[in-house]
């Protein structure tokens, strides 16, 4: 019996990437899921099975916080789907017009917020919306709506929506660019054929282009989903780890951070943190599976 000769160059080419990726990404991912089954008593690690999850979903103190964070996260995601992606697609549709002047300038300018860090975006909007500074009320005054001004970030009822819209403002460039790329790849012949049949302008977009870019919109949606359920930075920057006022802007990322590291009087608990991380993992996995098996397979792809 002869073993096939190992081709060492293949091993050498693959090894660095596979090692770093397995050691820093895959192994910790599964180790986190494993740590969720332990707890710490007197500085020794104790296997407790699903006890942490029973606490997380059974103890009202924990489960209320978890469902609150999950619900807020859903709202955060829905706002992105309803505002960010349609606005991005609209801007891309306008930009993709072949004879548009200054298209490069518009593209570059609209993408600027996307390259800024959450820290900049968060603090900049916090200052602009601050009642102390008064830029927002002054601007509303110009259009005669000054009475509408409220400290939006400080009110329980409006803080989450305001933060979602700030995040939308920051990331609109991504759906715009991806849709723009998809629109550019539609061959002119198809649009010309439509023109011969009298389909132009808005109806050309609605009836010809939009169906053709549906697969891209699917990818944009799943990217939005993963990014939103993984969000943390913007809320942490503007509202702190407590995601105030009164946890009204708490999402899974901030809840995991708080649980893991502790805050004020509560001590950090890596094992409960892992349990919440496992919950996030499940949510993201469900979302990605819904996309892969429920949506992607039903979308018809056209080869040009």
């Amino acid at each position, binding site marked *: 019996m002869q073993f096939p000769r190992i081709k060492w160059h293949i091993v050498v080419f693959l090894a660095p990437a596979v090692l770093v990726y397995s050691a820093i990404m895959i192994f910790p991912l599964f180790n986190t899921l494993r740590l969720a089954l332990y707890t710490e008593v007197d500085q020794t690690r104790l296997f407790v099975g699903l006890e942490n999850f029973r606490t997380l979903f059974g103890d009202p103190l924990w489960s209320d916080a978890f469902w609150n964070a999950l619900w807020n996260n859903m709202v955060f995601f829905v706002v992105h789907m309803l505002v960010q992606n349609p606005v991005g697609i609209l801007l891309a549709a306008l930009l993709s017009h072949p004879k548009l002047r200054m298209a490069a300038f518009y593209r570059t300018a609209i993408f600027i917020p996307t390259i800024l*860090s959450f820290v900049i975006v968060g603090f900049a909007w916090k*200052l602009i919306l601050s009642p102390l500074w008064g830029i927002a009320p002054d601007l509303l005054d110009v259009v005669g709506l000054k009475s509408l001004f409220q400290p939006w970030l400080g009110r329980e009822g409006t803080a989450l929506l305001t933060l979602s819209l700030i995040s939308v403002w920051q990331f609109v460039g991504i759906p715009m660019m991806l849709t723009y790329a998809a629109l550019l*790849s539609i061959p002119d012949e198809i649009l010309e054929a439509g023109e011969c049949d009298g389909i132009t302008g808005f109806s050309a977009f609605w009836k010809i282009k939009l169906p053709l870019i549906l697969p891209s919109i699917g990818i944009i949606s799943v990217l939005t989903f993963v990014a939103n359920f993984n969000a943390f930075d913007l809320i942490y920057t503007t509202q702190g780890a407590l995601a105030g006022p009164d946890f009204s802007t708490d999402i899974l990322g901030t809840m995991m951070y708080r649980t893991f590291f502790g805050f004020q009087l509560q001590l950090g608990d890596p094992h409960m943190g892992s349990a919440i991380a496992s919950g996030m993992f499940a949510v993201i996995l469900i979302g990605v599976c819904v996309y892969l098996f429920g949506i992607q397979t039903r979308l018809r792809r056209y080869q040009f």
Partner: protein
Amino acid sequence: MNSARTALSRKIAVHAVLITYVVIALFPVFVILINSFKTRRAIFREPLALPNADSFTWEGYQTVLNQGDFLQYFQNSFVVTVVSLFFILLFGAMAAFALAEYRFKGNTVMGLYLALGIMIPIRIGTVAILDLMVQTGLVNTLMALILVYTAQGLPLAVFILSEFMQQVSDDLKNAGRIDGLNEYTIFFKLVLPLMRPAMATVAVFNMIPIWNDLWFPLILAPAESVKTLTLGSQVFIGQYVTNWNAVLAALGLAIIPVIILYTLFSRQLIRGITSGAVK
């Protein structure tokens, strides 16, 4: 006649919508930048006015540069970003070459394994990553961040680069083999130079999230000497909330280098995104 007029009005409408959105996108950045050069009085009295001879001051920037170690933060961010990108590109290209070039057992499985990380965020594993870094003594080192960002960037890099590797002509590589070049020379001397545009795309994609990340610096490297610019400005602004000059100047310091880099690379970035790499 009539259709010419509707065409014109449609053109105006398109520009009006786009200009409105450009204003929405740029206004907050603009307000922060102009006010960072103004005196405290002017900031509050006329927030929308440009700085003039009367209201202009460097005060905020002086406070920031004296109090915070922004030069150090900037250097840390720079090292982390550049070294991570180097490893992502080198390791990613090597793995992509192996997957695209050779037919071996487990090729597809390996490709799928590496692609897993495109959809699953690395943050989920944070608890165990911190554990690992504590055990290996890498907490509060730039190396910890570099390793994490390399692992995070590899899946997409391998995916994009192997698509491009498949387009490299076999004749070229086989000619090299006939000339007696070994596989390493073929990769480094023949294939890698052809990958430059694709690698630039991968680099630009990874650069922004690495530079802007707050989560991992906060958890893995919060010590003063290894703070990145993003974490450094976050902590600094948190401490100086009431000093508006300092806060605005700190934001300005964080914005200006990014905008400069962006204007230099925006062509590359936009070409990269629209080239179909992520179709």
